[in-house]
Structures are given as structure tokens and as C-alpha cells.
């Protein structure tokens, strides 16, 4: 997607009526997944999968 993700706060989810139990579980799942990114370098060159695939086509 080209749009930026727009993170949602716990407060906004609670205001939308989502149960506290669901919000806490989602936060934990998200935190566990984002841990996988901790040791990865930041995005400096904007390289994307389709750039790799385009070079596969031309090679």
C-alpha cells in the first residue's frame, strides 16, 4: 500500500466499544510480532519486493 498506516490507540478502540480483553490480547499479539523487527535495519533505500521481481523479468 502507498498510504501510511495510522496506528490506533487503546483509548480509541475502547471508545469504539471493543472489549478490554480483546484490546489487551491484540496489544500483546502486536508486540510479539513487532519484536521480530527489532534487529532489522531501518528502511533507508525504499527497496520493495516488486523492484526485485522487475529485475527478475529483465534478467
Amino acid at each position, binding site marked *: *500500500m*502507498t*498510504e*501510511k*498506516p*495510522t*496506528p*490506533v490507540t487503546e483509548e*480509541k*478502540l475502547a471508545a*469504539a*466499544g*471493543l472489549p478490554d480483553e*480483546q*484490546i489487551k*490480547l*491484540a*496489544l500483546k*499479539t*502486536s*508486540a510479539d*510480532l*513487532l519484536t*521480530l*523487527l527489532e534487529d*532489522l*535495519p*531501518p*528502511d*533507508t*533505500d*525504499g*527497496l*520493495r*519486493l*516488486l*523492484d*526485485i*521481481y*522487475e529485475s*527478475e*523479468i529483465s534478467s
Partner: protein
Amino acid sequence: MTRYQSVSELRTSDAGVASSQALSVLNDLDTIGRALDAVTHIDRDFTLSQAGNSPPGNSVLSGVPLAHKELFRREGWPDEGGSRSHQGRLSNETATVIQKLDQAGAIDCGRLVSVEFALGVTGHNAYAGTPKNPWNTSYICGGSSSGSAAVVAAGIVPAALGSDTGGSIRLPAAACGLVGIKPSQGLVSRNGVFPLSTSLDTIGPLARSTEDACRLLMAIHGHDTGDRESLDTRMSLDLAGLEGGIGGLRIGRAERYFLDGSDTDVADATDAVIGEAEKLGGEIIPVSIPGIESTNALNFLIIATEAAHIHRDTVLNSHQQMNEQTVMRILAGMFTSDAEYRKLLAHRARYAQQTIAALFENIDLLITPVWPFLVPTIEASDAGANPDAAPLVQRIGHNTRPFNFLGLPAVTVPVGLDRNGLPLSVQLVGRPFSERLLLRCARAFERHYSFWERKPDVL
């Protein structure tokens, strides 16, 4: 009667024959398809009108009746994405792939059940229906293209389109004894298809034979300016290319992760297929794929983040009308920041670049299991009703999601039945845009195992 006929048997330039075939399919969808809980929409007037106009005689799908997953939009038809939260919405566009099938002469007979927002792998859907597996109606079809798999396996149509973001073509195709093609990222346009994940969604066919799957892929692939991630591959696909056999191909066997991460029944069956591939002239080469262990979770993080972006307002405003499992999966992506998201996409690109170069230096394709365990029953895999099912459900994408993360093409082909009488299949994976080679290998297995001669004893 049109059931269990192939595309080549159904192909006709006679409008009377096309109408008769379409009527037969509409009746079967209305009876058998609905009994399998696999059908969401039938428009008899539209379908019979389309069939009654002389189909183009030389087109690849002239007069062939098809039906597709409900995510494929046709103007004026329902656009609910399998969700009560979208009940009553109608499409205001027609998907590029549907337009291509129309131009190829296919007759569109309706829409088939998807998991809500295509975000699930078992096929459970309390709103649209949970399709039953035609091989044994107590078992799931797998998801999310569950209705497509059920209807094709029941022989109602020869092929149907599905979408695959984490395994949603391959898992149901494998569970229902079909050939499923998850194409290379960028090969088939997603324009006009209800989205789940813009970076990962792919579109492909489920069919009873390699030849029919190939015919659909021939009709739908190609560059489309309406999809920002569509690539101009100039790929050449033809049926003659299917008959080259396995002889001389270098076939990878990945013990770590794929075989040792699957249950013994499945791993042994996959190894038996690899052994047959060697007898058919393939050279078997052990391979390892460093870093593959984290790709399943990273693929899910992309799906959740992009699904949260697309469906944020629906979750905030209408979560009461959604399946709790769907809400939880989307919520997991709602906290990802822009920097984290960009880091994730950059890692995907770098990892794919390194892995593709290393993996396919010495092999032409890889053979892996599809499901990591035998296909479960509807009851045993219902995570909504049975919290104990959650660990089982989380494992389902073990062998499929890594190849969505890498963007690689993958074809599933059935090779037999398990001890419960459900189909067993393997997955063939190749380098980007190697669909022709994968289909050639699938065709060789199809001839070897003759699975298409088996039909489920359905209704």
C-alpha cells in the same frame, strides 16, 4: 448434465449449447452448491443472457460456465466480502480478471463463499456459510477460497477463481483434491477484487486438472494499469508446455521447517512423492532456506497491518457485526507504526532477493507439503466455538505463508487420499514467473497419480 466435465469438453461456440450448460450449472449451484453452504449469489437472468449471446468461437473459454469467490466484483452484484458488516452492499465496478474472462467467452454463473474479508484459513463463516468438503461433509474445505474449492470439487464448474494472501488458494485446493495456482506477485491484476493486503494479495485458479487451471491462468494474467503492483512480464503460457515431464529437473527437498514441521503422515506422503519424482527422472537435491522460520509470522504482520489500514473504519464502527476471530486478526495490525511497516517491507525485499538467488542456484523447483497435518473436521477447527482449536488453526499456514512473503509462484497438486478419505496434496514452488515449469511438473504428477479419475461421492 455438465458435472465433472472439463473446460475442453464444455467449450462451445454454439449459444444454444452454452445456454443449456449454464442452466444446468445454475441448477446445480442452487441445489448441490447451496447444500454445501458454498454459494452466495446467483443471477439467472444475467447468466442466461450472457450464455445466449454467441460466445466468441476461437476464445480459450468460449461458453464455459464458471463461478468465483465472492471477492471478485461484478457491477451490480453483491460486494459483501463475506461479512455481515457489508450486508447489502453492491459492486460499482467489474474486476479486471472478470472482464478478461468475459472477453475469453466464459459464462459467469455466480459467486461463492469466502471467509470474512478472506482473513482465515479454515473456511468458517457464520454469516455467509461454512462450506462443507465434498469428499466428506464433516470436514472443512480450508480457506479462504472455500466456496470455490467446494463447488469445483463437487464437479459443478470445472474451475473457479480464488485469492491467496497466506495460502487461501492452495489450502482449499489441497483439501478438496484440486490443482491450485498461487501466481507470482504481480502476474495477475487485483484491480476490482475486494482487498485484504495490498502487498500480498494474489489471484489464481482452482481447477480439477492442470490443463484447466492453465487455461484460466492464460486468460487472466497480464499487465494492468489499474493495479499499481501489476508487472509487465510478457509471460508465455500454452498447453503444449504442460507435457515436458519431470526428466532432468532439479528438485529441492527441504527437510528443515517444511518436512520436520509437518505431522508424520504428511511428511511421509510428501517424501513418497519426492521419491516418485526421482523415478520419473528428476534429480533430488537437499536444500535449506535460512531465515524461513520467521516468514510465517512476518507475513501475518503485513496482512494484519494492511488489513487494519483498509478495514479500520469497519472495525471501529461495525465490529459487533463481524466475526470475533476476524476482529482480533485485524486488531493485531492496528498498532504498527509507519517506520515499522516500511522496515518490514524493506526486509521482505532484501530477504527475497537473497533467498531467491541462493535457493534457485542449484534447483528448478521445491516440493513441500501444503497442510502441515491431515485436514481437520469443521468441529475440530472451529476456533470461535472451541478455544482449544486456536493452536491448530495457527499452524495451518505453516507451509504456505512463507511463499507469500517471498512472492513466489506455487502450484498444489493432489496425489492421493489420507486415512480419513480426504485428499493429500503437495506444493511445487519455483522462482518468480516460473509458472510454466511448475505446471509442467504438476501435469507429470497428475498423469502419474491419475487423481482426477477419483470423484467425491457427493449428494
